[in-house]
């Protein structure tokens, strides 16, 4: 790892931060596009402004938090079934 440290663009934290900020900008632009593009509602209420962005974000955060709870219940040592 040491000899090629810095040779890769992604190895530098400031570049990762740039990507992260860039993704937020893309996200905001996509939500703003809702003002321009008429979105055809599939299920009735999903035509609302930024519905998919909000739902996607909330769903994934909820998914990860629930999975962390699940880990408390179901996680066992790697050799659990071998014992």
């Amino acid at each position, binding site marked *: 790892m040491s000899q090629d440290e810095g040779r890769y663009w992604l190895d530098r934290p400031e570049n990762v931060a740039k990507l992260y900020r860039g993704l937020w900008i893309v996200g905001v632009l996509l939500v703003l596009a809702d003002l321009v593009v008429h979105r055809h509602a599939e299920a009735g209420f999903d035509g609302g402004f930024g519905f*998919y962005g909000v739902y996607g974000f909330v769903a994934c955060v909820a998914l990860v938090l629930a*999975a962390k709870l699940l880990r408390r219940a179901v996680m066992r040592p790697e050799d659990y079934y071998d014992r």
Partner: protein
Amino acid sequence: MIAELPAGLILVAAGLALPLLPRAARSPVAAAAPLLAFAQLLWIGPGYVLEKDAFGFTLQLVRTDRLSLAFGYIFTIAAFLNAIYAWRVREGIEPPAALVYAGTALAAVFAGDFLTLFIYWELSAVASALIVWAGGSARAYGAGMRYMAVQLGSGMLLAAGAALRYAEAGSLAFEHVGLGSPGGALLFLAFGIKCAFPLLHNWLQDAYPEASATGTVVLSAFTTKLSIYALARGFAGTEMLIWIGAAMTAFPIFYAVIENDLRRVLAYSLNNQLGFMVVGIGLGTDMGLNGAVAHAFAHILYKALLFMSMGAVLLRAGTVKGTELGGLYKSMPLTAGLCMVGAASISAFPLFSAFVSKSMVLVSAAEQGYTFIWLVLVFASAGVFHHSGIKVPFFAFFAHDSGIRCKEAPAHMLVAMALTALLCVGIGVFPGALYAILPMPVDYVPYTASHVLAQLQLLVFSGLAFSWLKRRGIYPPEMRSVNLDADWFYRRLGLRMARALAALLQRLFDAGREASRQLGEAGAALLERLHGSEGVLARTWSTGGMALWAAILLAAYLLLYYADKVDRGFIFLLILPFLIGALGLWADSRRRDDD
């Protein structure tokens, strides 16, 4: 002539012949056989029937229509890609088993009756178990045994269901069945096991990740999609499937988030993708069924691509555990890029395959008024991007640099991955080609500004959620662990109960043996006391003893004789010498016994 052969037998024949061929010819044959089978399917087209009388029935060995052909095409394509990917695997049981497995699954898809279906169903189960075992480890052996038990169990239910069905309907023809009869219910369960319905699912996550780098790719294509076909044929429009499918899309993604073995993560996401197809079948509308079939077609390709990329990582880095990987894009940039094509495809990015297939199921669910189901499916769509689209490439190729430096994947693997990636993108860019082979006429336009924007919003914000959680340190780290799932019930609880039962029986047996031993000893002791060497009834009667008894008898006789004639004192004097003699003899016999 070839058209006369039952579809799939080309692959089976090639598979059986493979070990007899010179080594250099094996891989070309393994790749050519699926192409030949594909050509045969194009040649015979829909509406072809091959019947044969056997076992007192008229069996439909081959019955082609648009539904079975769609699965036939993708099965042969998958078998071809697998052969390229495994080009260097020429020894052992895996290459022939892979061809026989693909061939029997293909033949099962074209089975026109339940008896033919059952035979190929079981043969494909056995062939696929061989592929699991070819993984070679002790874990692969155990997982293969469990896999085999579950698959054969599914076959038993299929046989029983078919027999009941024959009694109910008087026919073995494999047409729409429905849940209205006991036979239908058994068939539903048989298909459900193979389709990894919730709680019946764990054989999949258990066995697939234990096969070899190439074996898992083969396994991911056929078994579950055969059951998707069978459900579409027999249970289209069964409402229960909508709920089962929705549960299947949702619950595996929680496990996928916390699973460390990246091939097991993919197995959970395979399970989740099957859910979308099952919902489509349950809806039973033209759009829902088309969506299910289209998604199965697209799914086989991108799932193969993802498993191929992880297989290449396993081959080169020696592990697919998230805890041990990271930074591999430096060593395997091509594999990383191809993996991300698979990731974009499963996540349904516009221009990638699932975008044009999965959406049909969602639209149909919304149209039929299943709003809650639709919400679950959108949640699962976000979730699949989260764990398959981001987590798998991220932890393998990016994340923190693990320091692993290895070679890029071998050329044949890269070629197979590139071809598969090309098909994934091809379907996404030219959906018309896929829509043309679907069972129902297609009335759906995937590329509308509304659909593209909605999907991009969903995906970008799912990605933002991942990045945000990761940067805030909330995202659960990869951990070396086993996560308990439904297989706990038979791998731990069932095993414990079986062991407890065995221990209980052992204790009862031991107690019974102890009781009978004690009883026997008591009996033996009694006999010993009476008849043993010291036994009263078994003493050696010496001459002295005999004289004693003779004396006693004589004395008794005299006693009786004089009893009423003479004086008692006289009798006593008369007996006295005998008594003294008897005592002496008795004492003498005791002394001699003691010696």
